[in-house]
């Protein structure tokens, strides 16, 4: 940048510039707000039709205001798919994966980032690659093996698979975080006679706890939203997750337009709640993730 341009011209320019923007900033705000409204319109459509009776929908169409506050669609979906059970399945799978994957990531990263074991660059590269792998490249052997060892159609199969897939990313991220861990702290701990386990538990873990919290939330939400592997592995009403339950009812006789919207609404509520609860941590985490 030519920072040393003639400075006496600058004030006049600046005034004109600011005046110019003072008016146009409202245009910019209007345009961006319009964009945001377009982003939200599908949700408004969904809300509008989730509380509409099928008769109302077929006579007045998708855009009309509901004539009554109709909640039977919600109730139908809730009971027909046994939503509380689906919620529990999703919670069990995502929660277990989040905790286990964070633990595995931390152990891996401890060996790679702090232990600096031989060939760590290749190992980290391998983990990164594994994270990019299309799940189709793994799914059939996993499906077959799960059937052979009796893990097919169990939540455990999905938990094990996603623990590995998520920890591949976690290892990649944490290894680089721990790679910059101050050596002096580690050396001081070693001088005090702390073993590797004590160093991990008492020195490293407390230091990276914020990063681990972010990873925990990411793993939870990512696993919650996963589709292909749960779709293949969980075929039963008693094991399916929320997205799989909704998708497998697509085109079903039960699913008229209002029930579809009601089902989608129920299915989205937990994710939106998590988002609101975790928003602060999340936005911090996205920054951390992008800079690493």
């Amino acid at each position, binding site marked *: *940048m030519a920072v040393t*341009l003639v400075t006496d011209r600058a004030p006049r*320019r*600046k005034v004109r510039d600011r005046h110019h*923007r*003072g008016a146009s900033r409202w245009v*910019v705000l209007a345009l*961006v707000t319009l964009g945001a409204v377009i*982003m*939200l319109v599908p*949700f408004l*459509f969904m809300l509008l039709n989730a509380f509409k009776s099928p008769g109302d929908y077929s006579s007045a169409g*998708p855009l009309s205001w509901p004539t009554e506050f109709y909640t039977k669609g919600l109730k139908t979906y809730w009971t027909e798919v046994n939503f509380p059970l689906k919620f529990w399945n999703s919670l069990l799978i995502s929660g277990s994966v989040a905790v286990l994957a964070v633990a*595995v*990531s931390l152990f891996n990263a401890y*060996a790679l*980032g702090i*232990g*600096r*074991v031989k060939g760590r*660059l290749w*190992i*980290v*590269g391998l983990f990164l*690659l*594994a994270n*990019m*792998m*299309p799940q*189709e*490249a*793994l*799914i*059939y*052997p996993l499906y077959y093996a799960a059937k052979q060892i009796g893990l097919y159609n169990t939540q455990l199969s999905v938990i094990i698979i996603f*623990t*590995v*897939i998520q*920890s591949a990313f976690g290892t990649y991220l944490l290894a*680089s975080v721990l*790679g910059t861990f101050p050596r002096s702290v580690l050396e001081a701990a070693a001088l005090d006679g702390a073993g*590797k386990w004590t160093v991990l538990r008492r020195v490293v873990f407390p230091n990276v706890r914020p990063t681990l919290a972010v990873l925990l939330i990411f793993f939870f939400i990512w696993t*919650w*939203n996963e*589709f*292909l592997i749960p779709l293949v592995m969980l075929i039963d009403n008693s094991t399916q997750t*929320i997205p799989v339950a*909704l*998708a497998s009812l697509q085109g079903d006789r039960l699913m008229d337009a209002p029930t579809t919207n009601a089902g*989608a609404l129920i299915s*989205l509520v937990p994710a*939106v709640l998590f*988002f609101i609860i975790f*928003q602060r941590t999340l*936005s911090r985490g*996205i*920054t951390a993730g*992008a*800079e*690493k």
Partner: protein
Amino acid sequence: MALTQTSAGPQRPATRPEPVRTPRKRREGGAGYWLYLLPGAILFVLVIGVPLGGTLYLSLTKWSGVGDPTFIGFDNYTRLFQDEVFWTSFKNTIAMIVAMVVVPTLLGLLLAAVLFDVIGRRFKPRTAAALRAAFYLPQVLPVVVAGIVWGWILRPDGAFNSLLDVIGLGALRHDWLGDPDTALPTVMAVMIWVQIGYPVVVFMAALQRVDPELYEAAEVDGANWFHRFRSITLPQIRPETFVVALTCTIAALKVFGPVFALTRGGPENATNVPSYFAYYTFFKKLQVGYGSAISTVLTLIIIVVAGLFIWLQYRGERQDREV
């Protein structure tokens, strides 16, 4: 980026050339740490390594999933390269890259800069945060559920066509997802909606670490908003742009859920993508060998693309250091 960070390790002795320290460090990196890698490594081999090898092997066989696979060499691959559906699915992947990488990155850069620079500064930061949340919302939802809602909106009797009627464009009523000519552009539009929030959030976070003095200096020089965007914003947040482009490209190559929910690859394969094609071949047509070949080719493409990205990034960083 992390890769280059860890590679800073070997340079350490050069900056701290005390010969006493080096042998002790080598001892530290000894066998004890391998123990911590063990559980992760075993899981990794069982869940990723072995299945990947299995898929590679199966791609050389003919198998319906029952009985024993028959080894047929590279027949699946020769068949694959003559299969029109395969080529269509990869052509559609290009469309997905446009919808999930090119458009969201460009639009995201613009939106993030506007939200950060104009809305965040000339209005309240809370306004910018609220608008950002609106753009980011689709990113936190199960994409399949969002896909099902979109599928209903775009139905012939769905909300979108009704909306066209209301605003007087009823002549444009259309079976958006059912017509082979409009299905792909429609899916692309939905994917932009799904994806846009990710670059916006990452870029807005990135902009926070750009030194405001750079902008002030440029403003004093009389650079207009667009000049500042091009000469300061873009170069400053290049690392984030790289990460976004890489992760979105990989996501575009792997996209499955939205296609499953919106069109199941139809009509007439107009929206088929490699991962849905592989899924369909595995579990609906029960051609495990052929499905494995599709998955293997997709995996190879992803490895090549990721390698290319990392190489480009590495080269860019080295050039920066030389300048």
